[in-house]
């Protein structure tokens, strides 16, 4: 039982990283992107291929996974970020599916639907962090979440964060204030993609294998749910959202009813959550964070 809860907590951490990225894109800049699964897949495969085929250490593959996912974010972002609302959602959704199909069919690189097995475990100071022992891996994952949280929180309270919010509220007003809206949107998209790539790296060393079947559209939807449920524009809230969504999706197994409640049950629940939240609490459980609240993340100089 405790092992199962640890497993859920590890997945919560991995998804929380993606949700943090999604929050920058959707919560701060207001772009409805549905492609975190695509960047997640890219990160996973970078680590899998580099560590299995080339024997490169996990810690070197993590930044490569993040940077490559971010680069894809820029490549996808430049043409699509001119679209707004539903159109952007559809275009990004398409990208996620394209990534999955390429991974499925590029046999020489990705080994097709079979995926890549026997990914080496993470080592810290010569000590193997086995995913079977769980505690060690849990600490590693949540350290990543902590670092990402602090970095993104700082970013959101910086000059760039202010610019992103201005772009969300009114792009024309923002650009007449001297803000290069396109550049900031692409930056946010790249950073959100990069952190999803890092989450992918962790996922592949946790499961020790990657297969294209994991990176479905459902992953992107789950991440979006976490952001909407927790509260857009609030990094702590989306981590809370990740907790709730993960526990809900493992609920049948957790209470030992998995033979009665079908796995599709969670999709019904996600739908219900989204609709209920939109009606009664569109700002999410915690809501948007107003500026300057927690004293630990004070902006550098200037504004109080």
């Amino acid at each position, binding site marked *: 039982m405790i092992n199962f809860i640890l497993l859920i907590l590890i997945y919560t951490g991995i998804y929380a990283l993606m949700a943090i990225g999604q929050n920058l894109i959707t919560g701060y800049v207001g772009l409805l992107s549905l492609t975190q699964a695509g960047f997640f897949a890219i990160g996973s495969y970078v680590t899998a291929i580099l560590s299995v085929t080339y024997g490169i250490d996990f810690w070197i593959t993590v930044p490569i996974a993040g940077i490559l996912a971010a680069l894809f974010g820029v490549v996808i972002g430049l043409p699509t970020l001119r679209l707004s609302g539903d159109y952007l959602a559809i275009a990004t959704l398409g990208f996620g599916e394209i990534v999955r199909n390429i991974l499925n069919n590029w046999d020489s690189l990705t080994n097709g639907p079979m995926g890549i097995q026997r990914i080496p475990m993470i080592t810290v100071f010569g000590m193997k962090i086995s995913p079977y022992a769980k505690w060690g891996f849990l600490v590693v994952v949540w350290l990543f979440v902590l670092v990402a949280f602090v970095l993104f929180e700082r970013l959101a309270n910086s*000059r760039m964060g*202010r610019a992103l*919010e201005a772009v969300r509220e009114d792009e024309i007003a923002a*650009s*007449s*204030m001297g803000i290069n809206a396109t550049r900031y949107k692409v930056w946010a998209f790249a950073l959100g993609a990069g952190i999803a790539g890092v989450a992918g790296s962790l996922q592949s060393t946790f499961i020790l294998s990657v297969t294209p079947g994991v990176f479905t559209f459902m992953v992107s939807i789950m991440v979006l749910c976490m952001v909407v449920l927790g509260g857009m524009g609030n990094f702590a809230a989306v981590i809370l959202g990740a907790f709730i969504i993960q526990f809900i999706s493992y609920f049948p197994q957790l209470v030992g009813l998995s033979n009665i409640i079908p796995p599709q049950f969670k999709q019904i629940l996600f739908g219900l959550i989204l609709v209920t939240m939109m009606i009664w609490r569109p700002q999410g459980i915690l809501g948007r964070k107003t500026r300057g609240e927690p004293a630990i993340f004070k902006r550098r100089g200037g504004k109080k």
Partner: protein
Amino acid sequence: MSELLTIDSIHVSYGNIKALKDVSMHVDQGDIVCLIGANGAGKSTLLKAIVGLEPLVEGNISLDGEVIATTQMSGSSRHIKLFRRSGAAGTSSLRTDQIAGLGVALVPEGRRVFADMSVEENLDMGAFLVRDEQLIAKKKEEMYDFFPILGSRRKQKTRSLSGGEQQMMAIARALMSSPRLLLLDEPGLGLAPLIVADIFDKIRIINQEENVTVFLVEQNARMALKASNHGYVMENGRIVLSDKSEKLLADEKVRAAYLGE
């Protein structure tokens, strides 16, 4: 006086519809100039063209002799210029944010305040290009002195301000960057006459004391002409009249068409 803003026979189209036809005009340094005209005459389109939000089909717009908008590389291709280091002066159109960087501040139509931000945060946004925190703080105090109502609401969300207060905030936000040229799009729109009079008073003071050149577009012809030194009249995308404001106020055609006399 030297020309600060020069508009040289520009054409702007929305698809097949020609919104601006061969419009030429200029705003002198330190002057206060108005453009009046009916709904749909093309007034707002002209302001949008000046700040690079509408591409030109023909003609040039220059600021202090430097071309900021022309027929090359404008409009839809703006986004591709992302990786270009700010375009070589005088050859291509600049993006809206680059034009803002040259000291052109726009108070847009409908105010476009950042409704979920406080008054103070809005003013901070206005000073986005100013890197000197002390200067920003000083500017903010100036604005609170100039618009006392904003001073008393500085922590309040802009959404909760009245229309007149939001308009004053939009003007204050534009002034935060210490612009050379202040563009105002219908500052009196939807406001009570007393408040409109107050806002136009403030605009005159800004022009005289801060030495900011003002170009304002307004449907309320009487207010605009009284507040300005020079006026242009626009009809169906063309400039049909241009004269000193007091002469336009006395002009029979203007009186009949725009002043309801």
